[in-house]
């Protein structure tokens, strides 16, 4: 049994490639906690991992999707993208779909991601394979980053307008806001690419 402490927040691709690197070394995921991943030692490259964003789905939709993946022969773990220990939490997600806009703990809060495990059959492990579906999948992820980005940029503007405020405050918020803009742009590029492909292919 090997325990690893990691926190990837919303960096989905990085978490996915880390899990696959661990699998390459022969470590199979057995349990996830808020900050901890527990592995057992097995054969290298026996399993493949995909990390799936589900924070925009309602609790029921998320559960239904998880069950569907399990019925398709995969092992599925819930994973948090947030780091919040409060119970009885209620949060508004502007990027959610329908009831997915409201997240509660216990409920869909701290279950923003799914880690999906597949037995390695030599083929690439992709949950989304059509261009139209890929574009649809990336949209809520972009919107989530957009939501995160707006707050520091707004705060930066507010500090900038305040003459008494120290200019560093505005700059600090601006830098944080611009950092959050990187994933927004990255996901937007993917969405545009796959939307265009979907128009021609399908």
């Amino acid at each position, binding site marked *: 049994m090997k325990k690893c402490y990691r926190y990837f927040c919303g960096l989905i691709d990085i978490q996915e490639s880390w899990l696959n690197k661990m699998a390459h070394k022969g470590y199979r995921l057995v349990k996830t906690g808020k900050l901890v991943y527990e592995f057992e030692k097995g054969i290298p490259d026996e399993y493949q991992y995909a990390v799936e964003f589900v924070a925009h789905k309602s609790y029921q939709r998320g559960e239904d999707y998880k069950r*569907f993946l399990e*019925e398709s022969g995969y092992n599925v773990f819930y994973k948090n993208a947030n780091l919040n220990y409060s119970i009885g939490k209620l949060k508004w997600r502007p990027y959610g779909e329908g009831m997915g806009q409201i997240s509660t703990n216990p409920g869909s809060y701290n279950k923003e991601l799914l880690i999906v495990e597949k037995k390695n059959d030599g083929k690439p492990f992709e*949950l989304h394979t059509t261009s139209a579906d890929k574009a649809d999948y990336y949209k809520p992820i972009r919107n989530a980053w957009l939501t995160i980005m707006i707050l520091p940029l707004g705060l930066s503007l507010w500090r900038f307008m305040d003459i008494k405020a120290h200019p560093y405050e505005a700059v600090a918020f601006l830098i944080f806001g611009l950092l959050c803009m990187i994933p927004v742009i990255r996901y937007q590029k993917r969405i545009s690419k796959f939307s265009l492909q979907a128009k021609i292919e399908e």
Partner: protein
Amino acid sequence: MRDNAKSGALTEVTFFVLISLYEPNHGYGIMQFIEAKTQGRLILGAGSLYGAINALQDRNWIMPLDDGTGRKKEYIITDTGKEVVNSEIRRLQELVRVATDIVGEKI
């Protein structure tokens, strides 16, 4: 899922999911059906299939079969779905006819 409402053209995935459900089938079975029938040319991810199944259920082209055991959910094509498949076959035959008239039989 971007089926063309005007011309009635279905995406390849939609078409394959529909014809895989003339016999009751579950998600994993649909994926295997598509991979086998296309000799691995078309591989459908579980996430994309989940979206397709939900969209087709909303249109009432397929429906879930309740076997009462609560185990793997199976689906079957509806009569509406079968009509859609028939008109797609006619459209594809027409398409092939027009194309071979111009391009010729040899490819």
